[in-house]
């Protein structure tokens, strides 16, 4: 009985650790995604070399934060699903997980605002307007590519 319990605990910890490692490990395509956003920004906002040099690091922080926040958000969503389905979950656990999920959402907004507030002073008003267009266009293009990657047969 004791062995069985130990085996169960081992398996649980091992699987949890694997998931956690998977989340914390940066994706292989993170660099590709960053390059994609940088190229899109330059293409849409039409920055000069001096502006581009300053803006690139801001975009890098912005994209890295989006990866980190999304990972956290997904993890919290997974926890919420488990807690909701498990009958023995306490209200305290559920409230804590809900609060963490909401914090991830709020962090996403904060990251967005910080990015806009940082690049804004570096750009003229027309370029600032183009930043908004860039965000929507880049996200849409990336989403299209994600869908294509998920279902490559549909693209043939």
């Amino acid at each position, binding site marked *: 009985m004791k062995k069985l319990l130990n085996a169960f605990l081992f398996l649980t910890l091992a699987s949890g650790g694997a998931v956690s490692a998977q989340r914390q490990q940066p994706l292989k395509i993170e660099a*590709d*995604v960053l*390059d*994609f956003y940088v190229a899109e920004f*330059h293409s849409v906002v039409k920055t000069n070399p001096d502006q581009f040099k300053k803006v690139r690091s801001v975009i890098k922080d912005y994209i890295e934060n989006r990866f980190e926040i*999304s990972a956290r958000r*997904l993890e919290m969503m997974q926890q919420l699903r488990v807690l909701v389905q498990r009958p023995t979950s306490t209200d305290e656990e559920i409230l804590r997980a809900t609060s963490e999920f909401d914090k991830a*959402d709020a962090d996403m907004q904060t990251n967005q605002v910080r990015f806009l507030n940082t690049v804004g002073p570096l750009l003229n008003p027309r370029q600032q307007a183009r930043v908004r267009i860039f965000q929507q266009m880049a996200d849409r293009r990336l*989403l299209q590519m994600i869908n294509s990657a998920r279902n490559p047969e549909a693209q043939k």
Partner: protein
Amino acid sequence: MFGHLKSEDFVNLIESSEAPAKWRRHIDSCHRCRATWETLSAVHVEITSVGEDIPEPDWAAFRSSVRDKLFARSVQREASMRRWTGWLMRPSAVSTLSLMLAVGIPTGAFLWHLQKDHNTLSIGLETPKPASPAELLEAGTDKTVFDDLMELSEREQEQLHRLLQSAQKGSSHLQ
């Protein structure tokens, strides 16, 4: 001694059968009065015959036709009124009209208010309020894109890597 007959005497002679005998005798003896009498008698006969040719109106038919025409006009007016107002009196039409008024008036007032505000803004009386960062987020980014990105399998990441590389080749190299 009396003179020639006067005009009113001739009229009295025509209209009354019982004329004084002295007038008859005078007409017989006086050439001038007899000529006048004969002329007037001829005219009187002619007028009398014309009067006999005019048929007496059929008062009953006249009354009936007048009644019919009045009735027809009343029906026509009623039909005309019903054409304009009759449908308004139907229950479904009344409820529809009430609904239209209930929705239309507030909507119209609201649109008018918006138009008024727009006009006010367009002439520069008020400065437009900048969008809040939360609104910008909703308008600009899709927060699920990176969620989808995080959930890609190894094989899908490879596929996306190739797609991103080909997209990069399509645009200018910046680094």
